[in-house]
């Protein structure tokens, strides 16, 4: 697409319009988008076209359309975080990610659906209705960033931004046959990223290919003085790594504790095939053990809700968002309580209560405090592993896309979707999911996860690029070319 734009074969406005047409055709089925910003997008596209016409140098991604997860602020554009609480809210400021996208001339088509406040693994927790997996509309597209991944899989946008706290970019990528990366914590600014779990949240690039993802990664990453947790180091060369197509001699570690015990058979099958492809490409597979990973899920479901319970306290109807029950007879406190009862969905309330409990006096040491110690152990396990190998790999999640409604009544079962992705967030390192085939039993996409040491995200692109090329050559075409034709309305 970038090449087409650069050569002038197509204009950004044409490209954006074509995508809006596609969205109109299929999104009533997929429901990936919550809001379309036609005016803003076409204005941006026109501006990029103008620059190109005038012979100005523009970024390779200038004029390329993108879908933005609705958890990042975009000035003047509705940002709901998938919640009723923020219905109608238009932020007065841009997140740094959006600022960077605008600077590069990327055309933001609209905001995508998500689990409310990023809490969930299926996008069923959205207050605005579920998003459906383009591969099978009766199934979930993953979560919390299901809208972004579905938009990619349905060809509604070639690029997307997601956010990942426990797997919310990677798991949706896996179940929709797309690529998603959670960059090293601190490498992409969180300014303007509505916080769920501050020490785990990270925005990241999503696309249909590893190279596209790499290009987007370089646009959004970088030091931001407005974010105290932002790392002040140059962004690595992701694009170069993705194009390298050479991993000879690289050591790839398979995590014993994430090697598929009890996972869906087809997931394990495709995972192993991918390992073979890496070996053929010249890599060495080594088994490593990370015993603390057994406790990762538990630690996550203490840390994340705890931080969330505090981050979500600001939604009290006083300064922004909806207000319920203010008929003049009630106190501020009563109005707060009523608003939060109505404005938050079940999963969010569940996690707020859980988090409040884990932080409360008398329980802090046993719960939140202990979870933070598990985090230290997980970091240590990764550090030890990375002395032996360059990257670590695992299936992205234990199953392919499940049916909508299948797990929504069983929180614990839902949480298990994140068992492979969570350790990455707890340690703050990089994680990528890319397609490694369709599961034989249900024909649904399987995701392959690559994990790299902190600030070495380029290694994921290097390995991912090789794997993608190898698998595509064995399939004869990219995976997304096998996606079902969506009924065009």
């Amino acid at each position, binding site marked *: 697409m970038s090449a087409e734009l650069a050569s002038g074969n197509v204009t950004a406005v044409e490209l954006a319009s074509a995508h809006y047409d596609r969205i109109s055709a299929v999104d009533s089925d997929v429901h990936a988008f919550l809001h379309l910003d036609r005016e803003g997008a076409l204005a941006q596209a026109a501006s990029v076209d103008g620059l190109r016409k005038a012979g100005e140098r523009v970024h390779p991604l200038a004029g390329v359309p993108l879908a933005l997860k609705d958890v990042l602020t975009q000035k003047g554009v509705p940002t709901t975080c998938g919640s009723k609480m923020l219905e109608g809210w238009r932020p007065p400021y841009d997140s740094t990610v959006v600022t960077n996208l605008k600077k590069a001339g990327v055309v933001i088509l609209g905001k995508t659906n998500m689990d409310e406040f990023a809490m969930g693994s299926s996008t069923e927790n959205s207050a605005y209705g579920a998003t459906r997996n383009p591969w099978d509309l009766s199934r979930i597209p993953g979560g919390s960033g299901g809208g972004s991944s579905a938009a990619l899989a349905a060809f509604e946008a070639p690029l997307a931004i997601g956010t990942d706290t426990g797997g919310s970019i990677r798991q949706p990528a896996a179940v929709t046959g797309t690529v998603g990366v959670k960059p090293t914590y601190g490498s992409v600014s969180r300014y303007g990223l509505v916080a769920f779990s501050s020490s785990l949240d990270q925005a990241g690039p999503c696309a249909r290919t590893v190279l596209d993802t790499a290009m987007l990664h370089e646009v959004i990453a970088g030091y931001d003085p407005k974010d*105290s947790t932002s790392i002040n180091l140059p962004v690595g060369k992701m694009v170069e790594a993705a194009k390298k197509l050479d991993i000879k001699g690289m050591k790839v570690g398979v995590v014993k504790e994430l090697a598929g015990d009890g996972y869906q058979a087809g997931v394990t099958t495709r995972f192993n095939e991918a390992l073979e492809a890496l070996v053929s490409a010249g890599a060495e597979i080594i088994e490593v053990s990370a015993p603390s990973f057994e406790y990762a899920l538990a630690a996550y479901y203490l840390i994340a809700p705890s931080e969330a319970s*505090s981050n979500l306290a*600001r939604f*009290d109807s*006083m*300064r*922004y968002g909806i207000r319920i029950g203010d008929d003049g007879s009630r106190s501020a406190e009563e109005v707060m309580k009523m608003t939060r009862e109505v404005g938050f969905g079940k999963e969010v309330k569940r996690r707020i209560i859980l988090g409040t409990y884990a932080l409360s006096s008398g329980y802090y040491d046993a719960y939140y405090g202990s979870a933070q110690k598990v985090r230290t152990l997980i970091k240590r396990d990764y550090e030890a592993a990375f002395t032996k190998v360059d990257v670590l790999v695992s299936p992205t999640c234990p199953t392919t896309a499940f049916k909508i409604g299948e797990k929504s009544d069983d929180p614990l079962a839902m949480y298990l979707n994140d068992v492979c992705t969570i350790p990455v967030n707890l340690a703050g390192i990089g994680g990528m999911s890319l397609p490694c085939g369709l599961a034989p039993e249900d024909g649904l996409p399987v995701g392959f996860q690559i994990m790299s040491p902190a600030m070495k995200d380029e290694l994921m692109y290097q390995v991912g690029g090789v794997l993608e090329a190898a698998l595509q050559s064995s399939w004869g075409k990219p995976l997304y070319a096998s996606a079902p034709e969506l009924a065009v309305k």
Partner: protein
Amino acid sequence: MALNYNQALEKYEPTLGLEVHVELNTNSKMFCGCATEFGASPNTQTCPVCLGMPGALPVVNAKAIESSIRIGLALNCSITPFSRFARKNYFYPDMPKNFQTSQYDEPICVNGYLDVTIDTDEGPKVYRVDIERVHMEEDTGKSLHVGGATGRIHGAEHSLLDYNRAGIPLVEIVTRIIPGTDKYAPEVARAYVAELRDILRSLGVSDVKMEQGSLRCDANLSISPRNSGTLGTRSETKNVNSLRSVERAVRGEIIRQANRLESGERIIQETRHFQEESGETRSGRSKEQAEDYRYFPEPDLLPILADPAWVEELRLGLPEKPSIHRKRLQESWGVPDKEMLAMINAELLDTVEETVLLGADPTKARSWWLGEISRLANEKDVLPRSLIEPTEVAEIISLIATGELTDKLARQVLEGVISGEGTARAVIEKRGLKVVSDDSALMIAIEAAISAQQETAERVRAGNIPAAGALIGAVMKATGGQADAAKVRELLLRHLGQE
């Protein structure tokens, strides 16, 4: 029969603790770049960060860190090598995030002390107030409560919020329990806050105006029967807006608690509000169930590791301690203790010092400020410093020294300057108050007086010196009081042959 203060203290002994909040005078807020100007129009100094908008993130103000460390050093604290921010979680509409970014178990400074001296029956006594911690936090927004609209059956009230103040850096200084203050608890409390205020002012970290809220004091007080060895339940008194209120609040609480215990009631652990008019405290929110703030380390901010070399640099750069400073002034001016105390109690020491630094003689500076100027200030019910500036006073004093003004004339000039007629020289010009010191002019007046009172003049010639008084008086009258009386006398006596 209600106990009075002394009676209360016969039976009970007080235990005192003080928490002081200081608003720092940084240009920008604690976690964002918004301005911190006092009195700005509502919600004009606000941004996503201090409004707690979704997605906003804090970044620490380096100057606030520096000021906090300097405060700790001035209070003899140790600087914590690994200091962290924590979230204090509770809901209140003036708190944009419904948590306050503060510090919990790793405050920036710990274990300091401040010695304060008060006047007791046995003479001046020094109390060492141990300081448990100094930590950084952020201020809240301001709420205005609006009364019910007319005609509404339910009298609906609402509140209006201005977040300009939200996020302004605050430093909280917490004392340990101050033991053994006994009946001097109110004085010790006042002296502590006064001394602390002086130190903070000398550091230049805050304008420490209690009336404006840049220095806030909460007094914790409990009482227990004498020699019981136990501590009573304490109350926390807020809304203490002046030094005098600190003293009154502590005194009032002791009396209130004693009377409660006497009548068999127990003391409720609660927050109380000091009432200026009555000097009493009124019950606020009950703290029976201690609020669970669910403190945890602030994930959006990184720890502060103060470089020891930098801390040492700050320590060396500290200004002279006010108590040392005062001692030095006392020695150099040769002032007795009682007079020093008078200046301190009148809060005029700094003003006098300023005047001396402008060249005035210390004794003269003191006597003018504590004398005539204070008198006029009391008449108008204002502070002396608001009437006139040290520069003007120093000028008047120097005009007396050079003989251009007499004390009497100077008083008129002072009055003129205070009334806004202009500078000292301008008033002299305008009112024609200059001392007549020109000998020939004086001689004319002297000769006139002599010829008008020839008998008196004869008496002086005959050796009756005191009789000259009448003649001098006549000359003074003739010159409208602008003659230098001493000079007149000299010239007159010489003229009449009495050197």
